[in-house]
């Protein structure tokens, strides 16, 4: 869990352990599937299958390798960083997606819940057009944060 404050700016960047475990299992299963299909000479395969110590060693090695690779994938795809102050906000999802804006550009705010019970804040420009900040991913209380956003909007 990381939370830091720049001058007047709050930065929240918390690890999503579920997503991290997804990334880790993804890498681990990929390594194991690759190992399964690698043509290993019969003598080594026998050694692997019949000597539990070696099999365990391979699994541990795959597990150790999965940690940095899983972390790298998680950081690249899922990790969220939310920074905001009274005037503006920036929400980064992984390395590719960035949502940024100014509170005063929006006139209405709502709390939205997905069918997976993930909460987000919707900022409306008008009745149809809105931006969604998935603040559930940085573990902010959506109801309290909505009130804070309303205050920012009023101050303009």
């Amino acid at each position, binding site marked *: 869990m990381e939370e830091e404050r720049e001058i007047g700016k709050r930065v929240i960047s918390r690890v999503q352990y579920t997503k991290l475990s997804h990334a880790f299992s993804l890498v681990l299963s990929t390594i194991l599937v690759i190992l399964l299909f690698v043509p290993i000479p019969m003598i080594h395969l026998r050694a692997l299958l019949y000597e539990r110590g070696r099999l365990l060693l391979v699994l541990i090695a795959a597990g150790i390798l999965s940690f940095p690779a899983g972390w790298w994938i998680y950081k690249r795809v899922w990790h969220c960083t939310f920074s905001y102050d009274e005037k503006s906000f920036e929400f980064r999802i992984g390395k590719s997606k960035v949502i940024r804006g100014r509170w005063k550009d929006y006139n209405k705010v709502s709390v939205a*819940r997905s069918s997976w019970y993930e909460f987000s804040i919707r900022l409306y420009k008008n009745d149809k057009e809105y931006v969604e900040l998935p603040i559930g991913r940085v573990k902010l209380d959506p109801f309290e944060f909505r*009130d804070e956003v309303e205050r920012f909007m009023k101050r303009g």
Partner: protein
Amino acid sequence: MEGSALTSIEKELMLGGGRWIAEFNESFRDFRVRDVKFHLYVRGKLRGKGLFISRIISYLFTPDYLLGCFVYEAGENVKVSRKQLSRMMEAMSERMRKDELRFSWLIVLQDKVHEPLKNFVRRISRPDIGILLYERTSGELVHDRNLGIVMAKRVMNKLIKKWRRRGK
């Protein structure tokens, strides 16, 4: 206390007993419709998403209606009149047309409710709008004869019990 009553209704609708009625998935505070300001407006869908079998059952047997719930919280010792209630219902109808809502509920929280207003609400039987009046001083809940029953049963009665336990 006032803010927390609204928050507890909001949470009960989105995360608690409200899920037995519909998938309430979005909520607004201080929602203005014409000259009426509702302190809370929660909207959602009748058809739930679910997982695998429940999703299939929901898709096959539940109509895809949109619905909403409006909450009005009167200030201390302010009594809502029948005329005000009718104005709220008109505003709701307008918003229902705009958001294409099939059903909606109006929950009014106030310290003391006039007896004629209670009788008026008890007689209402609209197919599209359910009305519930909650009297804060006595903890009494009055609702209409149609849609109000389900909201009272699934959401408000549970909340009233919670509030009584906390001594609100």
